[in-house]
């Protein structure tokens, strides 16, 4: 049988981000996939040499718009560990609130794009309509719609007052109700099931060995979530990782869908337990040493390696984002699947290429 080499991406109708794959196909069946990155490589890590460590917060936030606050949180957490700063407890709870808002809007965005990928355009509109409520919450609480920019080394910049809290909780109730209404449309739909169930199976062992992260890992039955390590206020909140066991595209969809409700629940808990108090402490001195900082982003675990030598500027900043970790599992899933399933499989790892290439 003849082999055909097919370039896929970086511009493709279903791809929200410029990922390029060179696919070798044999009669519509994918045999091999080789990635090519670099379409949005910006070299942001290098900027650490000319911007001081407080300015870097705003820069790491721009690694990725969708998980901006989590990038900043992970970075601040690392610097705080180096400078021995204890963040006030109200700030920790507020960080949870913004982080979970980001998770909700990111998952809604993904569900919309996913629906769009197999031509379900009205569902795409529905999800994005709900997402707009969360964007409004972010704009009202932080001043910006996407890049909320609330984290500083030592705490947060903005507070949420009682009145806003009430409005947030009411909106979240609405969001939960509306998302729940779409449950039958996306999870019980015949077409959706045809396109996802049993396709792109990532076994438990493979997922662990290939270092998958986030929902891609948890949909294969491994209950690993960086929030269990207990950063910010998560140790005081009650939650357990959402897992699915089948490891196929459908499981990854269900996993993300259920995480929306988990995130809503976490925000409610955070508001219920939030203590009064100050928002930030002023850090003294300059960071020195090396640290590995990890948090759970909507797409999975992000790792920051920071090396500081006691000056204003960091010696080295390295960011390992979840999509970077999810590319090897994707390359493992692709061989053997139909060409028509490739777009859906790429989407189910929730790729964020601007994260990956920084």
């Amino acid at each position, binding site marked *: 049988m003849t082999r055909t080499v097919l370039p896929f991406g970086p511009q493709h109708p279903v791809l929200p981000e410029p990922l390029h794959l060179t696919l070798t196909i044999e009669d519509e069946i994918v045999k091999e996939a080789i990635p090519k990155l670099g379409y949005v490589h910006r070299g942001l890590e290098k900027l650490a040499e000319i911007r001081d460590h407080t300015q870097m917060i705003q820069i790491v936030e721009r690694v990725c718009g969708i998980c901006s606050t989590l990038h900043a949180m992970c970075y601040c957490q690392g610097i705080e*560990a180096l400078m021995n700063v204890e963040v006030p407890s109200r700030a920790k709870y507020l960080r949870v609130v913004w982080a979970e808002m980001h998770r909700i809007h990111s998952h809604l965005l993904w569900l919309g794009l996913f629906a769009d990928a197999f031509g379900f355009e009205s569902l795409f509109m529905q999800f994005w309509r709900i997402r707009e409520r969360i964007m409004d919450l972010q704009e009202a609480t932080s001043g910006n719609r996407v890049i909320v920019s609330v984290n500083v080394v030592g705490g947060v910049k903005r507070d949420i007052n009682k009145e806003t809290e009430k409005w947030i909780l009411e909106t979240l109730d609405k969001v939960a109700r509306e998302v729940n209404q779409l449950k039958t449309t996306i999870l019980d739909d015949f077409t959706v099931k045809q396109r996802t169930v049993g396709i792109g199976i990532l076994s438990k062992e493979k997922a662990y060995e290939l270092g998958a992260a986030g929902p891609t890992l948890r949909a294969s039955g491994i209950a690993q979530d960086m929030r269990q390590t207990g950063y910010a206020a998560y140790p005081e909140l009650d939650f357990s990782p959402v897992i699915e066991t089948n490891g196929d595209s459908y499981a990854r969809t269900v996993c993300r869908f259920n995480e929306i409700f988990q995130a809503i629940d976490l925000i409610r808990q955070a508001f219920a337990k939030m203590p009064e108090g100050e928002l930030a402490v002023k850090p003294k001195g300059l960071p020195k040493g090396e640290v590995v900082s990890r948090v759970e982003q909507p797409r999975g675990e992000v790792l920051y390696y920071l090396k500081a030598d006691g000056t204003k500027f960091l010696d080295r900043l390295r960011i390992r984002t979840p999509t970077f970790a999810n590319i090897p599992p994707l390359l493992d899933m692709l061989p053997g699947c139909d060409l028509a399933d490739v777009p859906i499989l790429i989407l189910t790892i929730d790729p964020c290429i601007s994260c990956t290439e920084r």
Partner: protein
Amino acid sequence: MKDSALVITEENTAEIPLDEVITQSRILKDEGFRFITMSSADLGESVCVLYHMDKDLQVRNLRVTVPKGKKIASIASVYSCAFLVENEIKEHFGVDFDGLPLDFQGMLYNDEEVQKTPFCKIGIKRV
């Protein structure tokens, strides 16, 4: 805080010689560690490469110091997912990995016209 911001100390980081990379990572893999990623930093005359692995959310690191111009063995035969990050380090820092299953020739992100290793403070020319 359990482990989400782990300051690197001697307890969690083992300093290993250049030629033991594969054996040491194999030991960790057999213990059930998962490969997270690698980091690297320029030290002037050499490049320090850190391997981050975790098990039950606990991170363990291996540290190797690679003199510039020396080769290091790729651990892709142990953890196959390492090839991507090894290519990245090869491109940014000019560390040569031996036995990469998929070698982008230092052109994973940048194009051919980028002649230097962009992340080193003093770059070395690509040959």
